[in-house]
């Protein structure tokens, strides 16, 4: 039984079949659509379906899991029925972090799902004024998509550079340049105070008291793991669903819950590259790579393997291909090998305690392979030690 029918869930189903699992498979998903891909939602505001033929699964789409008895692996659905399974894969991903304050009835959006993308796309008309709150990867891509469609865009960021925390000051300055060159009004060091308007958004007020007239606003303040349905399940929740390094879900007492694994954005687990500290990743490739390990470990609990994927992320801004590997956010030193804003090229290595922990390139993906090899070798060494 698999809960979550997006990327991680169906990919785990496919891995189970590839590994020879021949029994019943049920895939439960809250959205009433077959699986689709999220990255194109923010880049081109386009819906791209994911193909899932040949899984021989029973799909229960438009059905939300609302509770779990972890000991019996019994999932309660929103139609009141109970589903039990010999094994359970939790792949419920994440949701957009909501704005805690008041939000006008119309004009303010978040972007996580197909419905969100279609609602936003319908409003992105040329000449309209958009304020994006948060200049992370998602906020940056939305700003870029809106510029391409001829909107006036203001991008508000709390840090002094976009992605300062994730990629450091050098890459942050580089990205700030991309936004400004595209005509985005980038306001760094500023946070949202309030949305103005009751029926429809009229303006956005920032923490310095400045007011930006606006027709539309997108809140892009990150994601929160979708674990609300697991409250009271006896599983360990801690800014995500706590797993061990083998992607086995942990109980509140710290031991693995038999027959339950988790995959994708929902997982919070100790990563060897982070020195065993807990991380969560909202990365496409992470969901795909974890699926294979989780499927193996569910089928072969006595030969459960650690997950050793090298984190890998991409983002596209105004045609600049940003590629990141490892965990640059944890670096204490950045070495810039090349920075050529005119040619829109960047290559930077990220180190922690003098050791490579990540790398970022812009329009220089060819340069990533050696870094990736070094990170991969390091991870394999840690795990087999």
């Amino acid at each position: 039984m698999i809960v979550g029918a997006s990327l991680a869930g169906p990919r785990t189903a496919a891995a189970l079949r590839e590994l020879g699992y021949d029994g019943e498979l049920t895939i439960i998903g809250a959205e009433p659509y077959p699986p689709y891909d999220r990255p194109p939602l923010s880049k081109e505001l386009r819906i791209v379906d994911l193909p899932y033929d040949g899984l021989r699964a029973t799909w229960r789409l438009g059905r939300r899991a609302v509770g779990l008895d972890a000991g019996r692996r019994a999932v309660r659905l929103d139609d009141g029925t109970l589903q039990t399974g010999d094994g359970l894969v939790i792949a419920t991903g994440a949701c957009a972090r909501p704005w805690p304050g008041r939000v006008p009835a119309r004009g303010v959006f978040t972007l996580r799902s197909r419905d969100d993308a279609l609602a936003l796309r319908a409003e992105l008309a040329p000449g309209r004024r958009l304020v994006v709150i948060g200049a992370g990867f998602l906020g940056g891509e939305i700003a870029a998509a809106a510029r391409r469609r001829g909107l006036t865009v203001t991008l508000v960021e709390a840090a002094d550079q976009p992605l300062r925390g994730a990629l450091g000051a050098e890459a942050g300055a580089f990205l700030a340049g991309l936004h400004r060159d595209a005509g985005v009004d980038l306001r760094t060091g500023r946070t949202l105070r309030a949305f103005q308007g009751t029926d429809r958004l009229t303006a956005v007020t920032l923490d310095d008291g400045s007011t930006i007239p606006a027709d539309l606003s997108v809140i892009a303040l990150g994601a929160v793991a979708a674990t609300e349905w697991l409250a009271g399940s006896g599983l360990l929740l801690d800014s995500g669903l706590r797993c061990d390094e083998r992607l086995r879900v942990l109980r509140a007492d710290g031991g693995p819950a038999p027959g339950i694994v988790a995959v994708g954005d929902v997982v919070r687990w100790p990563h060897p590259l982070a020195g065993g500290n807990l991380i969560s990743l909202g990365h496409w490739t992470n969901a795909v790579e974890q699926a294979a390990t989780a499927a193996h470990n569910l089928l072969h609990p006595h030969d459960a393997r650690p997950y050793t994927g090298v984190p890998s992320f991409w983002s596209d801004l105004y045609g600049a291909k940003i590629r990141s590997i490892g965990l640059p956010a944890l670096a204490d030193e950045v070495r810039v090998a090349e920075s050529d804003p005119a040619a829109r090229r960047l290559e930077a290595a990220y180190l922690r305690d003098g050791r490579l922990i990540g790398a970022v390139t812009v329009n220089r993906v060819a340069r990533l392979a050696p870094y990736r090899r070094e990170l991969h070798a390091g991870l394999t060494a840690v795990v087999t030690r």
Partner: protein
Amino acid sequence: MRVTVDLGLCESHGQCVFAAPEVFAFDDDDNLRYESEPPAALSAQVEQAAALCPVRAVSVRRTAP
């Protein structure tokens, strides 16, 4: 085994290069180059490359030995 990459779809994500470096590589301008008939010994890596490509540009066809 026969590999084809739809270069119209490819966005230079590099996942195929990471998964199967003997088969896929970039030139200096980030254009993908690949071996279209890799040896069967590399089939697991090539399958992995196809699975990891975010835009599903890589297709693999098994040919008779």
